[in-house]
């Protein structure tokens, strides 16, 4: 029972007092910030990332993972209580969740979300434990050419599965890749695009980009249409679902978990796609009597299970291949690099305690969410009630101090400002900036792998198509691109993302 031994090792790591403490802090902070509308998980993690720099790697990653599902969960709470999804993956939860709250079943909706998430989290933690080792083993056979092609596939898939214009997703990726190249070139030592500024010699810190584009950009966007929002209830009662409710949510939770787990592994998928498709699936599966959009408990259970499952399984490609499937994972990879860990298949063999500790802590984190959040609901309601105009200056303060503390230079603060402006402009132009962050993280890696591949093949680019693994991956990318460009499927894809209307 190798799995059991591994999980035991993980439990020993994750259940140490220090790591439990950081897991708790992460889950708590993540939820606290996640409930604030208009601040998604990417901005939340970017904002809190500098706090973890001083911690040992295991604790830092455990805390960051905790922040991630805390933020997810907090987003759902806001979606249910104020009909303002805290982040994109809880958009569909708001549809039925808010209606349930209006009908006086807020407590039940919150409990359903918590139970669905916890179940999905448990299943997916097991999935990660089961599937990561074989996948990492396969990944160890990958040569540089295969890695390059894998990254191409990752980027292509993120375009296919992301919403918005394909052309702009491609453009954003190129833009991100280019930004990632800023700084000293590893093999020649040439400082590229650094304009002789010493601050740029080491490249742009990804926290600066993430906080600018996703933090400041979002804040300006939110200020555009400032509306008063009212929490409709000050007290949430009737937490426990009845036996009948539980019976109704079994199917949706199971289907949501399955769908979410699969979609989470795909690059670019993650939590948002999972929750949208799970909702669509439930609508198709349900008996005609189920009042979707009018407060159906199924409409809360399925997307909540799915988004947590997706959030969880998106760790698989990150942990085994070192490839981010969404911007949050890109941030996690960045955090690993800062901690001195080279992400990739070797993490599991070289740092088993870290690897398994992180996995077990995911389950512990989910348990903490279940146990902590329902009693703390009053606190979250208070947090949501803080008016935005008092909140956002404080958020900017934390962004500014966080970015300053990266290298203790005001330069990064100026750069964050530039990216804030860019982020807002892209938002106005409907160019979704998420692929930019993926490209930004992958840029230097892709260049390195391509360089090594070409060095080994003595300059022949054919190596990308003669190695079977690489050829398969590239063929998959080509198929994905062709498929998504076919008019019929294109329409379908747009429909899938417009489920909310």
């Amino acid at each position: 029972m190798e799995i059991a031994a591994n999980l035991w090792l993980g439990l020993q790591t994750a259940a140490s007092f220090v790591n439990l403490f950081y897991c708790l802090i992460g889950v708590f902070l993540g939820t606290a910030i996640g409930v604030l509308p208009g601040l998604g998980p990417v901005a939340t993690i970017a904002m809190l990332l500098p706090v973890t720099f001083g911690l040992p790697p295991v604790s830092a990653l455990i805390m960051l993972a905790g922040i991630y599902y805390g933020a997810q969960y907090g987003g759902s709470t806001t979606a249910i209580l104020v009909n303002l999804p805290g982040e994109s993956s809880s958009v569909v939860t708001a549809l039925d969740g808010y209606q349930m709250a209006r009908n006086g079943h807020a407590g039940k909706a919150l409990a359903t979300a918590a139970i669905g998430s916890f179940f999905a989290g448990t299943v997916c933690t097991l999935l990660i434990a089961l599937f990561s080792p074989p996948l990492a083993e396969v990944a160890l056979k990958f040569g540089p050419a295969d890695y390059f092609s894998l990254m191409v596939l990752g980027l292509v898939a993120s375009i296919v599965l992301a919403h918005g214009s394909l052309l702009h997703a491609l453009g954003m990726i190129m833009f991100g890749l280019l930004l990632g190249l800023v700084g000293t070139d590893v093999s020649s030592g040439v400082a590229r695009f650094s304009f002789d500024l010493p601050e740029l010699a080491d490249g742009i810190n990804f926290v600066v980009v993430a906080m600018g584009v996703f933090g400041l950009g979002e804040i300006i966007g939110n200020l555009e249409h400032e509306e008063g929002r009212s929490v409709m209830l000050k007290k949430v009662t009737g937490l426990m679902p009845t036996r009948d409710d539980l019976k109704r949510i079994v199917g949706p939770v199971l289907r949501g978990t399955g769908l979410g787990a699969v979609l989470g592994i795909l690059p670019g998928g993650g939590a948002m796609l999972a929750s949208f498709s799970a909702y669509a699936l439930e609508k198709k599966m349900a008996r005609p009597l189920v009042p979707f959009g009018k407060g159906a408990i199924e409409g809360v259970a399925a997307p909540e299970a799915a988004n947590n499952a997706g959030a969880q399984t998106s760790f698989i490609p990150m942990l085994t291949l070192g490839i981010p499937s969404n911007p949050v994972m890109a941030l996690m990879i960045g955090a690993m690099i800062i901690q001195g860990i080279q992400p990739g298949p070797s993490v599991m063999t070289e740092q088993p305690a870290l690897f398994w500790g992180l996995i077990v802590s995911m389950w512990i984190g989910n348990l903490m969410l279940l146990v902590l959040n329902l009693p703390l609901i009053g606190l979250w309601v208070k947090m949501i009630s803080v008016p935005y105009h008092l909140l956002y200056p404080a958020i900017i303060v934390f962004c500014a101090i966080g970015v300053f503390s990266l290298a203790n230079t005001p330069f990064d603060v100026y750069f964050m400002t530039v990216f804030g402006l860019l982020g807002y402009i892209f938002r106005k132009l409907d160019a979704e900036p998420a692929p930019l962050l993926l490209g930004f993280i992958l840029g230097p890696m892709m260049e390195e792998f391509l360089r090594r591949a070409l060095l080994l093949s003595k300059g022949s680019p054919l190596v990308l198509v003669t190695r079977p693994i690489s050829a398969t991956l590239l063929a998959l990318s080509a198929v994905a691109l062709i498929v998504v460009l076919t008019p019929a499927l294109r329409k379908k894809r747009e429909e899938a993302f417009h489920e909310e209307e």
Partner: protein
Amino acid sequence: MAIRNPKDFWTGIIYLVFGGFAFWIARDYGMGTASRMGPGYFPTVLSSLLMLFGVIAIVRSFIVPGEPIGKFAWKAAVLVLLATLLFGFLIIRGGLIAALLALVLVSASASDKFKFDWKATLGLGLLVAFCSLVFVKGLGVPMPLLGTWFDS
């Protein structure tokens, strides 16, 4: 010929400008040979692709119609960005307290709802105290509470 999709058009322009700029700078970096990719190889390929996407977006903007660009929130954008710039400018010179005051007051004025009343003042005071305690004393971020301007 009229621009039928302004969003596409301007995104295309941004791609073209950045791509062109990166391409122009990357000329000076060695391209290397195929087996030894130079520092200029990857940037040149990427910036060319970015420019290509820019051209496609611009061409498409004349053919496929789209929505107009929503109103630009100039006031919010300028004030928020100015606030962070001021923070960067003041953090060493004026110190954390001065930088926070400037950041909060300037960025808060971006909201129409902001009123400088006792509540806001109290919140501001608490925030400054919190940041001084947690970040400077607790986490040891090297930010002076009073900057070089106050040295005598």
